[in-house]
């Protein structure tokens, strides 16, 4: 059972984008940071455990040539071995900041040289893998940035080809031992999933084909890919082989966000149908296959949910954002 906790007010409402909530837990300072995209601006705020807002900051997409103010597509904290960076993607490019958003340390403009006039140009999908930050783009290319332990000397080290349509989301996990093959998965608008092994050069290991609907959100847990689709399905695949293990008809509308509490194997799914579900993932000792159990269903009335995140490592609390909602809703288990 979960109960509603005190909401955290936002200056501006959340936009109807997918994966529109990023959470950075800072247990050492008893703080939680939240990041939400409004449209042309994104809001960062930090809150104390009871949800009392402490500080807030607004970031904007860098201006460029164009008719209207550029829209932000996503904002996400990347935890690297020696630092935490905040990454902001927009219809102009990629901005990286120190974790409190105070200083921009890097700007990468998207190349829209040969683009047909019909094509929308943007970056979307952000994840860190070791000392790399990977960002997806409208063309399907995934940009890999090499991040130094400190300072602004960030370098674009690789461009990964694997997708033919716009990237939607990227998920990573620490390499699971010597024989672990896969530690990154990228997803796109066609539903195609690409599974990669990170390194000085990233290697494409497997491709898991889509079936005509976008895959807006993806997670990776102990070699299992959890993917949420535009038709409300959540599917679990074996990352190294692409074999389908579990298919859940989880939601009645497009899934907008997934999150993971890796220590306990809990998966959070949220969709435009106003529901948030919590699932328990486990590996069957007999078959070695991933299994799923449904734990909890939460309805956020009349809210088209656009972002969801666990707020603590045990997965006993989570936060939700919704389109047009100028607050972050919080739930914790009783």
């Amino acid at each position, binding site marked *: 059972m979960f109960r509603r906790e005190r909401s955290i007010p936002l200056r501006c409402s959340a936009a109807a984008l997918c994966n529109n909530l990023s959470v950075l837990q800072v247990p050492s300072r008893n703080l939680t940071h939240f990041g939400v995209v409004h449209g042309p601006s994104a809001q960062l705020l930090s809150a104390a455990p009871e949800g009392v807002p402490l500080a807030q900051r607004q970031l904007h997409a860098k201006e460029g040539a164009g008719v209207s103010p550029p829209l932000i597509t996503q904002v996400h904290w990347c935890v690297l071995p020696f630092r935490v960076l905040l990454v902001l993607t927009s219809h102009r490019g990629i901005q990286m900041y120190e974790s409190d958003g105070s200083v921009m340390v890097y700007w990468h403009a998207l190349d829209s040289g040969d683009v047909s006039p019909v094509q929308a140009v943007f970056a979307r999908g952000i994840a860190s893998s070791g000392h790399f930050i990977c960002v997806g783009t409208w063309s399907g290319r995934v940009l890999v940035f090499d991040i130094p332990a400190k300072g602004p000397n960030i370098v674009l080290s690789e461009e990964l080809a694997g997708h033919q349509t716009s990237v939607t989301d990227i998920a990573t996990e620490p390499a699971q031992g010597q024989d672990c093959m896969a530690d990154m998965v990228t997803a796109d*608008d066609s539903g195609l999933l690409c599974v990669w092994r990170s390194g000085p050069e990233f290697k494409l290991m497997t491709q898991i084909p889509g079936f005509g609907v976008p895959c807006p959100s993806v997670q990776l847990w102990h070699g299992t890919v959890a993917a949420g689709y535009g038709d409300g399905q959540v599917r679990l695949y074996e990352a190294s082989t692409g074999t389908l293990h579990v298919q859940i008809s989880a939601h009645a509308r497009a899934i907008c966000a997934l999150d993971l509490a890796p220590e306990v194997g809990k998966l959070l799914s949220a969709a435009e149908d106003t529901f948030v579900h919590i699932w328990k993932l486990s590996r069957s000792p007999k078959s070695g296959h991933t299994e799923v159990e*449904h734990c909890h269903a939460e309805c956020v009335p009349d809210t088209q949910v656009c972002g969801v995140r666990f707020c603590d490592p045990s997965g006993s609390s989570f936060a939700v954002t919704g*389109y047009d909602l100028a607050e972050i809703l919080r739930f914790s288990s009783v």
Partner: protein
Amino acid sequence: MSLRTLPLLFLNLGGEMLYILDQRLRAQNIPADKARKVLNDIISTMFNRKFMEELFKPQELYSKKALRTVYDRLAHASIMRLNQASMDKLYDLMTMAFKYQILLCPRPKDVLLITFNHLDTIKGFIQDSPAILHQVEETFRQLTEIYGALSAGEFQLIRQTLLIFFQDLHIRVSIFLKDRVQNSNGRFVLPVSGPVPWGTEVPGLIRTFNDKGKEVKKIEFKHGGHYVTAPKEGSFELYGDRVLKLGTNMYSMNRPVETHMSGASRNLASRTQESIAPNPLAKEELNFLARLMGGMEIKKPSGPEPGFRLNLFTTDEEEEQAALSRPEELSSEVLNIQATQDQQRNEELARIMGEFEVMDQPRQSASKGDDLLAMMDEL
């Protein structure tokens, strides 16, 4: 965001405008031939080939202000006149109706079905005018050609673009409140029952597979809603059962457009920010308007046809009252161009809007945008 959004935005808002005008014309007992002329003139202007050509070019969505100006012009494409207060109310009703339709749209692709619903009803208004009917069907074909091939991902981007455009609009509309599709705080009700979108399974099943792809276990779970399977898919053909009711005419003789629009409860903070900041895009937007309305062939009244004023409220006093009590920031949106019966003023406006046929010599200038800005300052 998506560069393919404007035609869908324009056609659906235009459709809602026609539904409301049609109902008000009948409620105000405007003679049938005059009412028909008004609708015919507006529809014919909307679906004019040159205008549609401009509309369908891939482009970003412009500001609400710029779009509102287009509808002001469109509403005055005939012998009918609307006061500011009525035009404001008309636009608010149009906007909230389409926002509702987009929000409740089952699949992103279904926005096309909503558009077709509007076009189907528009065709009903002009049954007696084969020429205009042909224009509408031509637009239908263009829509099918461009949007028929788009992927689910591209439709998702279009839907997101539209929702961003309508973000923070929470005007309470009496007909929605009465039907319980809108809450008293201005938010729309999102039902958790009914048919799932075509192609989606009813939630509640966890299926497990073995390495060979064979299903080995099936478990049900309680998902919280009360959904049923979708009966059938709506038709995307020129003629067909759309199945979806969104975008059909909800105003009829028995369901009049309510005169009491219960207050405007927008997010004032974000609205004020938008109107205070100087708009560096004004020139670009005026270029857009000039191009778009340059394609609008507004028919001049042929003879001494007397115009008439349509009121979106029940009485003139109500209309006056609404104008006075309208929050400042909601009125500031409008570029103050009012088409009047004054012939001289009409000519000046026509020049500004880019209809160079009226003038003997087109005005020479370096940039059309500067030109328009200068002229508007003179007004």
